[in-house]
C-alpha cells in the first residue's frame, strides 16, 4: 500500500488525467511560489520595527493600523511573512535533503543501513513535534534556528519513508534490472533511472513540508516560544492574544496574519497535491509504473464510481421498440468508418437468443504520456448472438476488445467509455435497464468469471466468504451455510481439503488456485448464463485440464468464454468467434474452424501455434504485398489501431496510417492483401460460417 498522504485530494477524475512533464510543473510551482519568494527579501525591514502611536485603527499612514506597541501592522505583516516563509522553507529543505538521502541509502543498499535508518525514522515519527520544540526551546535559547532544526528533525522521516519505498519498487523493475545486468554502476542507476522517477515525488513532498513547517512554526511562535526579536506571523498573533486584541475586536490586527498564514499554507498544500497527483502517485496511464508497483499490461479502463454516478453515456440513444436489427442511418457515429452495414437477418429465432448484440461500438478517450488525446476504439460494429445451449469461445489477442465485450454485456463499462449500438438481453434493451435491474441480473442471471490477474479477489476477506457472497446478499443464507456451500464448490473445482481451505485468504493461494476460486465464485449462484474471461490464463497444464473438465461438465443455458488459449477453445467450444482489434473477423462452428478456417488471420493464428511448429513462413513476412505498395511503413505494424493519427514526421505514411485504419485491420500482415482491403469488408455468410474478408466475398 502506498504511504498515505492527503495527496490526491483533488483527484476526482481518472488517475491519469493530469500528467505533465517536468517543465510545466516546475513553471507552475515557480508561479505559485513567486509572491512568497519575493516577500523573503523584505524580512529585515527597519520600518517594521519603527514605533508610532499604538492602537491605531487603519487610517492615514497606516494601512492596517498599529499594534499595542505602536508598530505598523502592515509592514510587520510583510516582514513577518518573509521570516515565516524563510523558516518554513529552510525547515522543509533540510528535512527533504536528509529524508531523501537517508531514504535513498536505506532503499538502495538495504541491509544494516536500512534497518538503522528506518528504526530511527520510526522513533522520530513517534515523537510529537510541538512538545519537542517546546522542550528544546526551553533548554536552549529561543530562536528561529532551533525551530528550524526541530521541525526538520520531525519531518524527515516522512520523506525518507516515501523515498525508500519508491526506491524499493523501482529497483526491481526490469529496466533497472537490465541496467544492473549490464554492470551499470550504482551512480548510473540511481541518478539516471531511479531519481527521475522519484524527483517529482520529492518535490511534491518538499512543497507539502513547507506548508506543515509553517503551520508548526506559527504554533510555536503563537505560544511565545519563538525568537522575541524576530517577528513572524505566529508571533504577531501571540501579540494579539496577549494584548487582548481579540476581545477588543481589533480585527485589523488579528485577521491579516491569520489570512496570510491560511492562504500561504493552502497555496503550498494545493501546489504539493497537484504535483503529487501529476507525477508522484500517478504516472501517465500508459506507464508501467502506474499503480503501486504492479506491472500492468496495456491501459486498463477506468472503473465507474460506486455510488451516484450514472451508467456510461450512450451516443446512440434512440429508443427502439423493435428487436430486428436496423442500420442506424440517422446517426453516423454508430456506423464504423467505411463499413457497409451487416444486414443479416437473425440466424436464430429470437426467443432462443439470450444475448443479441447489434453494431456495438465502444470507445475510450485517454491521454498518453506525450499529452495527446487519443481515442481508442475497443470495439467496432460488433454483431453477435449468444443462443441457448451454445458454448462459445471468443478468441483474440490482447487489444482485440474481447474482455470489453463481456463488460458491455454485463453493463460494467467504465465511465469514460462511450458506447454505441445496442445490446439485447433476453429480448430487452440493456440500455434501458436501471442500476437495480443490472444488479439483479448480475446476481441471478449472468455469472461472470473475471480474469485472475492481480487483485481480482479481495485480499482481506476469506476466500469462502467471497465465494458465497452472491448467495448471502441476495439469497440471504447465513455465513456459516455459505462457508459450507463454498467448500463444496471449491472441492468441485478440484481443490483438495476445501473445507479447511475456504478459511484461507487469497494471498495464501497460488495463482492457479485463485483462478479456481473465481470459478467457484461464479458457479455459486447456478446462474443461467456464464461468461468467463481467460479462465486458463497463467495456469500450468494440469490445472488447465482440470478447468476444462469443469467447463465441460457445466449445465447452463449458455456459456461464453473469452480466451487466447486455442487448445482450450478446441476442446470446449461449439462456436468459435475470432476477434481482432475490436472487430469480429470470423464466426464458425468449432470443428470447421479448426480444420479449415476461412480468414487469413485465423489461418495465421493456427499456424503460429507452437504445436504446429511455428514453421509457416508466412507469418514472418513483414514484406508482404501491402508493404510493397507502401514502402514508407516498414515497422511491422502491430501497433494499436488508433484514430487521430500518430505524431509522425512523415506526412505520407501518416496519411497511409489513417487510410489503413479504415480498412481491414489485418491488411498490413495479410498474405492475401489486395487493394480492396483498404476498405473494410463486411461479414459474409457461408451457411453458418461467417467471414469478414474480401476473399470470401461470395456469400449469401
Amino acid at each position, binding site marked *: 500500500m502506498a504511504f498515505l498522504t492527503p495527496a490526491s485530494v483533488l483527484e476526482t477524475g481518472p488517475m491519469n488525467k493530469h500528467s505533465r512533464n517536468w517543465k510545466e510543473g516546475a513553471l507552475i510551482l515557480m508561479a505559485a511560489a513567486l509572491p512568497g519568494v519575493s516577500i523573503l527579501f523584505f524580512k529585515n525591514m527597519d520600518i517594521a520595527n519603527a514605533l508610532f502611536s499604538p492602537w491605531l485603527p487603519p487610517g492615514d499612514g497606516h494601512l492596517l493600523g498599529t499594534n499595542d506597541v505602536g508598530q505598523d501592522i502592515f509592514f510587520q505583516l510583510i516582514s513577518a511573512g518573509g521570516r515565516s516563509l524563510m523558516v518554513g522553507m529552510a525547515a522543509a529543505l533540510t528535512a527533504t535533503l536528509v529524508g531523501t538521502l537517508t531514504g535513498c541509502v536505506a532503499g538502495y543498499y538495504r541491509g544494516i543501513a536500512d534497518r538503522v535508518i528506518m528504526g530511527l525514522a520510526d522513533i522520530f515519527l513517534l515523537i510529537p513535534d510541538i512538545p519537542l520544540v517546546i522542550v528544546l526551546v526551553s533548554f536552549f535559547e529561543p530562536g528561529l534556528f532551533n525551530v528550524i532544526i526541530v521541525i526538520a528533525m520531525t519531518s524527515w522521516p516522512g520523506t525518507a519513508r516515501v523515498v525508500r519505498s519508491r526506491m524499493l519498487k523501482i529497483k526491481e523493475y526490469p*529496466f533497472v*534490472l537490465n*541496467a544492473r545486468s549490464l*554492470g551499470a554502476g550504482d551512480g548510473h542507476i540511481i541518478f539516471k533511472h531511479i531519481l527521475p522517477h522519484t524527483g517529482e515525488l520529492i518535490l511534491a513532498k518538499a512543497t507539502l513540508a513547507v506548508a506543515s513547517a509553517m503551520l508548526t512554526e506559527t504554533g510555536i511562535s503563537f505560544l511565545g516560544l519563538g525568537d522575541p526579536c524576530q517577528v513572524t506571523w505566529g508571533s504577531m498573533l501571540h501579540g494579539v492574544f496577549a494584548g487582548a486584541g481579540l476581545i477588543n475586536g481589533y480585527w485589523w490586527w488579528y485577521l491579516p496574519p491569520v489570512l496570510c498564514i491560511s492562504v500561504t499554507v493552502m497555496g503550498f498544500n494545493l501546489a504539493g497535491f497537484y504535483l503529487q497527483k501529476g507525477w508522484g502517485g500517478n504516472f*501517465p496511464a500508459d506507464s508501467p509504473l502506474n499503480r503501486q508497483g504492479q506491472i500492468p499490461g496495456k491501459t486498463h479502463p477506468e472503473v465507474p464510481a460506486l455510488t451516484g454516478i450514472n451508467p456510461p453515456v450512450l451516443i446512440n440513444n434512440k429508443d427502439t421498440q423493435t428487436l430486428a436489427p436496423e442500420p442506424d442511418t440517422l446517426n453516423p457515429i454508430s456506423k464504423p468508418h467505411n463499413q457497409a452495414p451487416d444486414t443479416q437477418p437473425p440466424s436464430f429465432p429470437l426467443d432462443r437468443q439470450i444475448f443479441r448484440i447489434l453494431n456495438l461500438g465502444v470507445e475510450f478517450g485517454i491521454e498518453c504520456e506525450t499529452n495527446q488525446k487519443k481515442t481508442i476504439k475497443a470495439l467496432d460494429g460488433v454483431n453477435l448472438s449468444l443462443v441457448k445451449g451454445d458454448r462459445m469461445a471468443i478468441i483474440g489477442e490482447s487489444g482485440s476488445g474481447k474482455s470489453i465485450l463481456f463488460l458491455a454485456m454485463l453493463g460494467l463499462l467504465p465511465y469514460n467509455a462511450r458506447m454505441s449500438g445496442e445490446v439485447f438481453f433476453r429480448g430487452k434493451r440493456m440500455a434501458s435497464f436501471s442500476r437495480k435491474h443490472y444488479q439483479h441480473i448480475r446476481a441471478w442471471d449472468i455469472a461472470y468469471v473475471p480474469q485472475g490477474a492481480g487483485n481480482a479477489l479481495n485480499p482481506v476477506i476469506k476466500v469462502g466468504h467471497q465465494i458465497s457472497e452472491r448467495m448471502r446478499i441476495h439469497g440471504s443464507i447465513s455465513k456459516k451455510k455459505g462457508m459450507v456451500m463454498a467448500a463444496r464448490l471449491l472441492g468441485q473445482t478440484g481443490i483438495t481439503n476445501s473445507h479447511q481451505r475456504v478459511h484461507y485468504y487469497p494471498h495464501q493461494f497460488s495463482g492457479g488456485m485463485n483462478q479456481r476460486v473465481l470459478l467457484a465464485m461464479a458457479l455459486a449462484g447456478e446462474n443461467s448464463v456464464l461468461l468467463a474471461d481467460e479462465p486458463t490464463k*497463467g495456469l500450468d497444464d494440469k490445472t488447465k485440464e482440470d478447468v476444462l473438465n469443469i467447463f465441460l461438465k457445466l449445465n447452463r443455458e449458455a456459456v461464453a468464454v473469452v480466451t487466447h488459449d486455442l487448445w482450450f477453445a478446441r476442446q470446449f467450444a461449439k462456436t468459435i468467434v475470432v476477434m481482432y482489434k475490436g472487430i469480429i473477423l470470423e464466426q464458425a462452428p468449432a470443428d470447421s474452424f479448426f480444420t479449415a478456417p476461412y480468414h487469413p488471420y485465423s489461418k495465421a493464428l493456427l499456424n503460429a501455434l507452437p504445436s504446429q511448429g511455428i514453421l509457416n513462413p508466412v507469418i514472418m513476412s513483414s514484406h508482404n504485398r501491402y508493404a510493397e505498395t507502401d514502402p514508407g511503413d516498414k515497422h511491422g505494424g502491430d501497433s494499436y489501431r488508433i484514430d487521430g493519427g500518430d505524431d509522425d514526421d512523415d506526412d505520407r505514411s501518416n496519411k497511409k496510417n489513417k487510410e489503413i485504419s479504415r480498412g481491414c485491420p489485418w491488411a498490413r500482415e495479410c498474405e492475401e492483401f489486395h487493394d480492396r482491403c483498404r476498405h473494410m469488408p463486411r461479414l459474409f455468410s457461408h451457411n453458418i460460417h461467417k467471414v469478414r474478408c474480401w476473399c470470401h466475398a461470395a456469400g449469401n
Partner: protein
Amino acid sequence: MLLEINNVDKGYGHGRFHKKVCVLENVSLTLDKGKTVGIMGDSGKGKTTLGLLMAGVIRPDKGRILLNGQDIWAGSRKERDKKKAQIQMVFQHPEAAFNPRWTMEQSVREPCHIYKISLSPQDIADKMARVGLGTKLLKRYPSQLSGGELQRIALARLLTISPSVIVLDEPTSMLDVITQAKIIRLLMEIQENTGISFIFITHDRELARVMCHETHDIGDLSLPSSRVEIRIAAEEQTLDL
C-alpha cells in the same frame, strides 16, 4: 562448455525478520555455445530467480556461475562487469523493460553508454534491421509501442554489445500467438547468424519443444542426481560491433 552453474543456492528474506526462504537449492546446469536450453516449471518455483542469477543481477548464496570456466563473481569490478556483460537478459514484461521517460533510442544506446563505447547511427540502424524494424520507432516512447515491437527492441539493445548468452525469461508469454511466433523465429534466426546461446524460461511445453535443444524442469534441476553435463570448449567472445 560456455556456461556452467554449480550447486547454487539462493534464498530470499521474507517478512520483517528476514527469515530465509530457500528458493533454489543445489542447482546445476550447463549450456553450450549456439544452443538453447529450456527451463520449465510452474510459476513461483524459482525460474526467474535462476535467470537473474545467471545474468549476474543477484548473487548466489552458495555455488558458482562459470562463464568459459571463470567465475563471474570473481575478480575486480571491471573484470566482473566484462564477464557479466556477456550474459544478458530479456524480460517477461516488455513495457517494463524500458525506462518510460527515455526514448527508445536512448534505451538502445544505454549499454554502449555504460561501457563507454560509441555507437554510430548506422550501427543502431543495423541492429534494428536485424530484429526486423525500421528506425522510425526510435523516437517514440515505450508506451507508444506494442509488446512485440518492444521485445524486438529489447533484443536490438542487447545485440549492441554482442553477448554470448541471453537469458529469456518468458519473453513471449505477454504477447499474442502470432507475435510470439515471429519473435521465436527471430530468435532462431539470430542464433543461426551469430551463435548466441539462449536460456529459455517458459511454462509452455510446446514452445519449449520447438525452441530448445534440451529442456530441464526447475524441480529436477534442484536434485543432485540429475546433473546434466555436456562439455564443449568455446572461444571467448569480445565486445565488438
